[in-house]
């Protein structure tokens, strides 16, 4: 572990970077630089970052391929949506006014995300306990099946709007700034989790599950823990998604959505949270930037994926974590470069 001064320095640098991004976002919004289109892309990026990082907990750190992430996302989305709809329609609380959220609206928005995440986590627990006794392909198939079951159930039950979907959800995720802060909080929590004894235990299971058990790690306990936390954050992301769009349809949470998230994780690097952020941003923005190529857009997108997988099979960052502190350190003291490059191999487990 580095000494206290360095830890505080690195916290400070990251905090300043986050705050700086926030200020830029605010100024851009005030200056009218962010139109509806750009706002939509940024919102999707924020949601995708939460989704990709949370899936990275199970797929990258725990090393179990899970194909039902969209299922957890949909549970969160519908739970949050039904909750705020109930608050507005039945309880008659004013959540939105003309110029944005009321303070009750903000409170209910945050509460709805906790509820969405919480219910998704409960499902994660229920699915995880039996499913995580299996691993590899078997687990992938089970989670795939789970995702499809959820989708079918949503279409079946009338209270979710059935196949027609859920409409007129209060659009509480209207402020980019609020969603940005929520995204940052989610990312920080997951970072802190990974860089703790729990994260270390989960990584150990990925590396060798027999050795981890022999070293006193209760594998099942930690597997379920990682899976549940991942489900929680998928649910939170779903809650934001629902209240940003205002309408929900079960078909948008199909198998392909899970694959989309998985692609982000694999491309960014399994076991690198910063890699997930990078690829969530890239893979969300790329198709939009290629819009002028219209017909060839998805083709180019696929080619990019193939090229990355051929030349960097472990993903863009592998298990390496990008660190702003280290980058600044290298720019300020280029002489220490050599030491820094051996440090980088410490990867995810040493703060």
């Amino acid at each position, binding site marked *: 572990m580095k000494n206290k001064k360095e830890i505080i320095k690195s916290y400070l640098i990251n905090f300043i970077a986050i705050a700086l991004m926030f200020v830029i976002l605010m100024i851009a919004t005030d200056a009218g630089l962010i139109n509806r289109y750009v706002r939509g892309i940024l919102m999707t990026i924020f949601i995708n970052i939460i989704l990709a990082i949370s899936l990275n907990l199970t797929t990258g750190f725990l090393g179990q391929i899970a194909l039902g992430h969209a299922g957890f996302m949909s549970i969160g989305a519908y739970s949050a949506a039904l909750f705020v709809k109930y608050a507005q329609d039945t309880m008659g609380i004013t959540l939105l006014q003309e110029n944005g959220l009321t303070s009750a609206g903000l409170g209910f928005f945050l509460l709805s995300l906790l509820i969405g995440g919480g219910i998704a986590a409960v499902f994660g627990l229920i699915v995880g306990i039996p499913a995580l006794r299996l691993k590899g392909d078997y687990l992938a198939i089970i989670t795939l099946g789970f995702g499809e079951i959820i989708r079918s159930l949503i279409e079946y039950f009338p209270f979710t709007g059935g196949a027609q979907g859920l409409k007129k959800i209060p659009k509480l995720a209207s402020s980019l700034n609020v969603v940005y802060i929520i995204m940052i909080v989610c990312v920080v929590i997951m970072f*802190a989790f990974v860089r703790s004894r729990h994260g270390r235990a989960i990584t150990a299971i990925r590396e060798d599950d027999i*050795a981890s058990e022999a070293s006193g790690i209760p594998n099942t306990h930690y597997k379920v823990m990682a899976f549940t936390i991942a489900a929680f954050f998928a649910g939170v992301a779903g809650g934001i998604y629902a209240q940003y769009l205002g309408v929900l349809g079960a078909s948008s949470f199909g198998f392909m959505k899970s694959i989309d998230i998985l692609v982000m994780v694999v491309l960014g690097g399994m076991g690198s949270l910063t890699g997930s952020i990078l690829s969530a941003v890239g893979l969300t923005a790329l198709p939009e930037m290629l819009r002028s190529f219209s017909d060839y857009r998805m083709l180019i997108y696929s080619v990019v994926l193939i090229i990355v997988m051929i030349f960097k099979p472990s993903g863009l960052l592998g298990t390496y974590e990008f660190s702003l502190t280290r980058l600044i350190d290298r720019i300020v003291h280029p002489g220490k470069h050599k030491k820094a490059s051996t440090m980088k191999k410490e990867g995810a*487990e040493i703060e």
Partner: protein
Amino acid sequence: MSNIDTTPVLKTEHLGITFGGLKAVEDFNISIAPNELVGLIGPNGAGKTTVFNLLTGVYQPTEGRIELDGQEMKDKKPHQMAKAGIARTFQNIRLFKNLTVLGNVKVAFNQNMKYGIFQAILRTGGYWREEEEIDQKARELLSVFNMQDAADKIACNLPYGQQRKLEIARALATNPKILLLDEPAAGMNPTETAELMEAIRIIRDKFNIAILLIEHDMSLVMSICERIVVIDYGMIIAKGTPKEVANNPKVIGAYLGE
């Protein structure tokens, strides 16, 4: 070694396991005193590793019982056995390959750490205190094996002999009462073996634990073990001091064929 009035740290009574119709281990009785160094030898396929798997909870015995410090260990999973105080290494090294050397050792401290998820997320005082404590402990442990300088290396990049030592260091981090070493000298050259023998002695004295080791390298077994248990076809065929065992006709028969 007189161990008449001390409770044995590990004791088995009529321990056995049957796979289908095959009796892999049968009527295995052993009693290891605290701080004793015992060797377990036998020809290939005799059931040595199966004994280890029984003792560490990988297999559940179909017969007999295991006592650790006078307490019966029943239906325990491997991580519970580790927590209770039985640590092991593996015949084919099993490290957390992509973690650092230090990280490997830290994983094994997990069971004795207390801070919860929320304390980890909020980075409370407890988190920092415990993390700092195990960081220090892990480095101390590595320095016993003279590996403190390799702390930040990735485990799979270590030379073979150091990987073996790291595995032992990791096992010791669980704070065991007894350490089971499965062929620690396998694949080592004579210098590395000599170093390892020295290390095993140091561990025993410094950590004050009992050690049970499986080994094919007879010079190692004969020179460091105080007592040797020989098994063949899953049954104990001889017990005693290295000298007694070496001259036992049954043992000679098992190794050389009658």
